């Protein structure tokens, strides 16, 4: 049996930060094609910081123009850049002491090759045509190859906010227990695991019993029926946050399958009226036709039931009294 494809997903956080008057001055300068340091006990620190690094005292906002030229104090030639680097072809990260500054700025140098780099070499700031009031608005090149160009200001007033979208990708195979659960769904069956120590049935199982701290194996697998009881639900009215795909209110329910000790969470209920939905209601999973089932959205983190279940259908049986639902791990 071939294993299911590794799961890959992107985790994103769109950060919006206030920058304050010191970092703000520096970013405003970048937008307008100028570099600034800040005076601190007779030294000029670039990039400017808010506090005296020795005493921690707040620095006066005494900004000093620095650059655009500077000297490379140290560097590393990056043979294989990451997606997050300022250049996608090999370049250097360097500590650059700008003319007029006493400390070095960590930044990128675009050079034809590693042989063009050396400690003590002169470099010069170059501004990107499209600037976002961010540290990436500028980069450096060997001074001999620098172009002197007029940099038009691209905004007005001081920069007060910085936007930084964090976007990370992850890829991993499904854990063994999760993979067997996913294959069960594709076959129209719920596969859980019975703890060899307590006899409690976990579905979906994480591959261990978290109460008794026992790792479980395939021999602990158990098949469960497709009938169960609603043990909890919520009606969600979607708020339009970044990444939200829902627009209309919907029900998310927890269903305790018959014979299980943990419920299936986050079950989508779209066709039972909210007014009729209740805890204790008996329901049956109606699986989609085999060809329409897929488990692509199942990961090690988010289990769910993929797109395998068409709908949960009320069975018409009498409700289960809530006191009979006590003791489950909800």
């Amino acid at each position, binding site marked *: 049996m071939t294993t299911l494809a590794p799961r890959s997903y992107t985790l994103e956080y769109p950060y919006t930060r206030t920058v304050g008057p010191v970092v703000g001055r520096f970013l405003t300068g970048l937008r307008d094609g100028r570099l600034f340091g800040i005076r601190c006990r007779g030294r000029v620190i670039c990039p400017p910081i808010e506090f005296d690094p020795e005493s921690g005292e707040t620095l006066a906002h005494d900004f000093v123009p620095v650059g655009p030229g500077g000297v490379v104090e140290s560097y*590393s*030639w*990056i*043979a294989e850049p990451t997606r*997050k680097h300022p250049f996608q072809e090999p370049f250097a*990260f360097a500590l650059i002491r700008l003319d007029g500054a006493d400390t070095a700025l*960590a930044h990128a140098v675009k050079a034809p090759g590693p042989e063009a780099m050396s400690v003590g070499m002169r470099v010069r700031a170059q501004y990107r045509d499209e600037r976002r009031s961010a540290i990436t608005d500028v980069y450096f090149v060997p001074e001999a190859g620098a172009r002197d160009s007029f940099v038009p200001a691209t905004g007005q007033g001081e920069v007060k906010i*910085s936007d930084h979208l964090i976007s990370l990708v992850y890829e*991993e195979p499904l854990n063994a227990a999760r993979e067997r659960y996913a294959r069960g769904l594709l076959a129209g069956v719920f596969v859980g695991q019975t703890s060899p120590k307590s006899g409690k049935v976990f579905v979906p199982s994480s591959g*261990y019993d978290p109460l008794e701290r026992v790792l479980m194996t395939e021999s602990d697998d158990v098949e469960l029926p497709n009938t169960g009881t609603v043990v909890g639900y919520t009606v969600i009215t979607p708020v339009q946050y970044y990444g939200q795909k829902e627009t209309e209110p919907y029900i998310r329910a927890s269903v305790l399958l018959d014979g299980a000790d943990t419920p299936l969470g986050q079950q989508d209920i779209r066709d039972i009226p909210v007014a009729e939905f209740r805890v204790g209601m008996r329901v049956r999973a109606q699986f989609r036709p085999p060809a329409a089932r897929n488990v692509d959205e199942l990961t090690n983190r988010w289990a769910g039931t993929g797109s395998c279940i068409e709908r949960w259908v009320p069975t018409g049986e009498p409700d289960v009294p809530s006191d009979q639902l006590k003791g489950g791990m909800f």
Partner: protein
Amino acid sequence: MEDVAIVALAQTPCYRRYTDSEPSLLMGLVNQVLAETGLERREIDFTIAGSCDYLSGMPFAFISNVDAFGAWPPVYESHVEMDGAWALFEGFVRMQLGDIDTCLVAGSGKSSPGRPREIFPLQADPYYHAPLGLDPVSMAGIQAQCLLNTGKASERDFAEVVSRSRRDGQSNPNAQVTADVSPDELLKEPYYASPLRRHDLPPISDGAAVVLLARGPVARALTKSPVWIRGIDHRMESHHPGLRDLTALPGLVTAAKKLGIQSAPIDVAELCVRYSPEEIILCSALGLGRDVRINPSGGPLCGHPVMASGLVRVVEAAQRIARGEARRAIAHAASGAALQQNLLCVLEGGA
């Protein structure tokens, strides 16, 4: 000061890719230290773990790790978004209150699902560095170049650290990358982040480590070979590389002085050498001479389970003391780019 000892410890091998979950990785270790000491989970007074949600790729991932400690009955626990060595620090400090006898400390991480070089710039300055993707590998290259600039080390010195470490790793069953390779051969390899070559970097690893702490009399009752934590300290250097001399670690020097590490012979030093030049900087800051055995385990260059790697140094050093191979050892953990944060721990044997 309350006497606190390590009474049991465990670590997983360093895996290139551990295909089960992080709680599964930890659970076996927790069960191992409980079985060794005969303690029940409910006899553990405090539990503290170090892990990183950005590595795991899920907000609140550290909560799932509590499964490994036994979430029921309710567990008294805490978490640091730091290497497990910092969890050890917090556990040690917590025990100084004198009202608890035992503390379980864990560190765990799976680097394999994500891309560490894209994740770790996020621990840098969010305005000046993170948007550049300025990653620890690149910073290690810049730091190594500073060593060359000042004549404090040569590329051959870096290669010698790698050669010795990867050879030592051959006798470490938990090592992931080992080799019998000479500095001359290593120096023929191309640069990756100059002046570093690929072998100057640690492998990408998944792994975990656990230690069980106990207070004086309880420690003596639980084991015949307690390993006493005689001192533990951690310090930060500036997070602006331009404000640092990258070849020196004044914070770590202060920690070493306060702990009096040179007041008695050091038999073994387990140092969190993630990039080979770091060993030269660390030895210089700690004043370690050629008489001190550095990283007999091979160190992080042979396996680097981020978030556990520092605690593994403590485990390795403590193991040597418990086995009677060393009397006094130091363990070091590092966090951040270019050794920005350092933790130092002095360990001693004896009843």
